[in-house]
């Protein structure tokens, strides 16, 4: 009964989406205020319907309803409750439902928090989102229905959730990622609404900007979580693999980052309107492309869902309609997009152009690397595969240029700036950074390598110039603190996000070049020396848990005779699938992780174990979190808050609409 209800809600959601995706457009065209007002109600209705449907599927999991095929394939009576709830998005059908639910969540949020928009604009934004919802709800209903029953032969028990997914990181990673992906639908809808209106004024950019930032924050955290998960769960110490699906999430991130910057130029200076709109379309298109790549099976990947050409065709057709329609509209209205070109060669406008060119180039690297196998097959019927040897050097090249540009760009003035004083100051800071880097590497590392010196110098330079900027900005105030308080939240956001970039770069480069990896053999009670650590194999135990049996080694690690930590790496055997999993034991540290995993049992109770030392690895994710914090600071800027609180009452809304 409950699955049928869920199915029913999903059908209602489709009907509601069809209403939302059409009538308000007509209303906006004919200035019919009733039809336009319908948009908000239908958006909130869409969220309620999909939430109900989603809860029904969750209930089917919680109640172990194995008559539902999706539940039978991805759950089991032995699965702990928390994983039953999260198994809902463990595979294609359920995660698609989550995708749609999140889209409707964004719609409801836009309906509630965008009262300052003109009625026409608001109706068009919501109707565009409704149109997207039609596509995805029918995708779920017609090709990937999660409520499908397996009757009359109901399995007695389910096949269990893949143990790789029975993990905290995996619980939070997909929803975060989807929040980001789908969040870019909002700025896409703003672009469509703006293009339909014809003239994109600066207000347009001001409205679209916070939504883009919020989506970007989620995507940043989502990608970082995925990388962190791969690091501790897959157990070979890697954190990024240039896997097609990783790339599929990374491409919208790069495009979104470029969009954030060009939106700033459009909002503040009315510059680059048509480019900004194109980027807004591109960013969401790349999110859709990611969905297509993951769910159609044209590329193989660790993340790829069950493949089905029919599903691929559906998404591709929809992608064609949505993106093709948007680009046609763009071409049609191209003439009307007049940008303000009033700036000189040394200005923030130019810095942002360079930022966009470089980000776009690195996007192109990832795009070509991911899709080249498809292109080569299409053009020359050749099968090729592309890996880190392609991505690492090209991506690093463009990224190094970006790093080089940030210290200048973030300090430049709009319209016109003087180059000489800026150059002089920055090069002094750069010299300090290089000296600092060489000193630190000589002091703490056993070898001096070219790339770490270059990258760390650039990163430290960036941090120094951020600090320098903050100090300068507050130099006129009575005290440093008073000065810092005067800097607006958006500026704080920019500075903090840029520091985050520097932190991530430091983490990436040091982990890549200075990691230690050792394979050792160890017997019970034996002490083995690895570098300056001694590891003692205390004991070996077996434990029984709800759905797996764990074999756990206890290893005491000491450094220079002092006890450092006790690590307990384990092997798990999952009872239902019979799968063996290795759980690495990690002693996390700010300056490096000690990482031990059990390899295999040897004779006489001895084990082969892997010992890794990963210096600065946490900085990779710490940097991402700091970037996200920067985004958070930017959206909490006064001008957004003030608007939101003032314009809750409908009366005031109409006043603003008239102004």
């Amino acid at each position, binding site marked *: 009964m409950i699955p049928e209800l869920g199915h029913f809600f999903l059908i209602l959601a489709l009907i509601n989406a069809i209403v939302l995706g059409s009538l308000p457009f007509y209303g906006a065209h004919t200035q019919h205020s009733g039809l336009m007002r319908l948009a908000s109600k239908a958006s909130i209705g869409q969220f309620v319907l999909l939430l109900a449907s989603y809860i029904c599927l969750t209930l089917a999991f919680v109640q172990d309803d194995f008559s539902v095929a999706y539940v039978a394939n991805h759950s089991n009576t032995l699965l702990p409750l928390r994983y039953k709830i999260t198994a809902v998005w463990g595979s294609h059908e359920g995660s698609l439902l989550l995708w749609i639910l999140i889209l409707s969540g964004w719609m409801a949020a836009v309906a509630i928090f965008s009262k300052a928009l003109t009625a026409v604009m608001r109706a068009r934004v919501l109707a565009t989102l409704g149109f997207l919802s039609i596509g995805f709800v029918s995708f779920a209903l017609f090709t990937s229905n999660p409520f499908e029953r397996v009757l009359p032969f109901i399995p007695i028990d389910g096949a269990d959730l893949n143990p790789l997914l029975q993990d905290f990181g995996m619980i939070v990673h997909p929803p975060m990622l989807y929040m980001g992906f789908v969040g870019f639908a909002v700025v896409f809808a703003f672009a469509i609404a703006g293009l339909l209106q014809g003239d994109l004024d600066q207000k347009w950019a001001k409205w679209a900007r916070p939504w883009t930032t919020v989506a970007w924050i989620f995507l940043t955290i989502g990608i970082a979580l995925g990388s962190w998960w791969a690091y501790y769960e897959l157990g070979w110490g890697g954190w990024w693999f240039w*896997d097609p699906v990783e790339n599929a999430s990374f491409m919208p991130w790069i495009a979104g980052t470029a969009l954030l910057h060009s939106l700033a130029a459009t909002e503040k200076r009315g510059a680059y309107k048509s480019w900004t709109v194109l980027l807004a379309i591109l960013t969401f298109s790349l999110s859709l492309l990611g969905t297509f790549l993951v769910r159609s099976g*044209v590329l193989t*990947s660790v993340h790829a869902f*069950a493949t089905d050409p029919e599903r691929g065709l559906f998404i591709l057709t929809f992608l064609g309609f949505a993106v093709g329609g948007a*680009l046609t509209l763009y071409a049609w209205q191209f003439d009307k997009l007049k940008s303000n070109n009033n700036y000189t060669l040394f200005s923030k406008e130019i810095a942002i152009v360079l930022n966009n060119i470089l980000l776009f180039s690195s996007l192109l690297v990832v795009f070509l690397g991911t899709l080249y196998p498809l292109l080569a097959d299409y053009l020359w019927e050749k099968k090729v595969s592309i890996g880190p040897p392609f991505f690492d050097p090209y991506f690093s090249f463009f990224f190094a240029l970006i790093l080089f540009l940030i210290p200048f760009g973030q300090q430049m003035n709009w319209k016109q700036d003087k180059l000489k004083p800026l150059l002089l100051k920055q090069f002094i800071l750069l010299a300090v950074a290089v000296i600092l880097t060489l000193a630190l590497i000589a002091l703490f590392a056993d070898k001096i390598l070219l790339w770490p010196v270059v990258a760390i110098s650039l990163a430290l330079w960036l941090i120094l110039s951020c600090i320098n900027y903050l100090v300068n900005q507050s130099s006129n105030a009575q005290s440093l603190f008073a000065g810092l308080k005067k800097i607006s939240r958006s500026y704080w956001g920019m500075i903090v996000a840029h520091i985050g970039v520097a932190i991530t770069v430091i983490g990436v480069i040091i982990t890549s070049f200075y990691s230690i990896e050792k394979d050792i053999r160890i017997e019970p009670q034996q002490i083995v020396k690895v570098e300056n650590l001694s590891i003692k194999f205390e004991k070996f135990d077996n434990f029984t848990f709800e759905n797996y049996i764990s074999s756990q080694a206890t290893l005491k690690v000491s450094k220079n005779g002092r006890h450092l930590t006790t690590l307990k790496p384990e092997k798990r055997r999952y009872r239902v699938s019979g*799968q063996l*999993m290795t759980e690495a034991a990690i002693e996390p540290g700010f300056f490096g992780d000690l990482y031990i995993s059990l390899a295999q049992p040897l004779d006489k109770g001895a084990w082969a174990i892997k010992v890794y030392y990963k210096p600065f690895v946490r900085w990779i994710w710490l940097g991402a979190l700091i970037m996200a914090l920067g985004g958070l600071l930017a959206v909490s800027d006064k001008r957004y808050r003030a608007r939101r609180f003032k314009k809750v009452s409908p009366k005031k809304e109409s006043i603003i609409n008239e102004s």
Partner: protein
Amino acid sequence: MKAKKILIAILPLVVFAILVMVFKSSLNKDPRELETKLVGSPVPSFKLASVTNPEVILTNDDLPKEIFLLNVWGTWCVSCYAEHPYLMKFAKEVPIKWVGMNYKDAPKDAINYLNKYGDPFVYSISDVSGQMGIDLGVYGAPETFIVDANGMIRDRHVGVIDERVWNSVIIPKLKAIGWEQN
């Protein structure tokens, strides 16, 4: 000037249209079901070490004398990590032998991998140099060949075999060449 402007305006649309065409064709072609010239010919002759017992040298004579599956895998292949749990499950539940071919891998890593995730194979052939992969026409991993009792390659599947592929592709193909699930 006017023409140039129109060109810039429609350029994104044109690029997008080309991409959609490429995607469309790749959908129809489905890279996983690529034919191999080797269908109908014997498994190329090889003489390579076993992954788990490096002192044992395996040749064509060691291949099972029944219908079996030859799975190409590698620890560098991210998709193999996704496929592996399914192989473990099928190896446990379905009475058919799996022979592994460890493609372009360090034997040490391969052993770690099998110890860590379980070993579904009767044995794995260690193709460190990649020569056997070239002979087989492998272009990626994972890839699975269906081989009959006479050592003839009967079919090939490129890409991850999951529950769905197993039931809708592999099982029917196995049945088509006379394999029976008893």
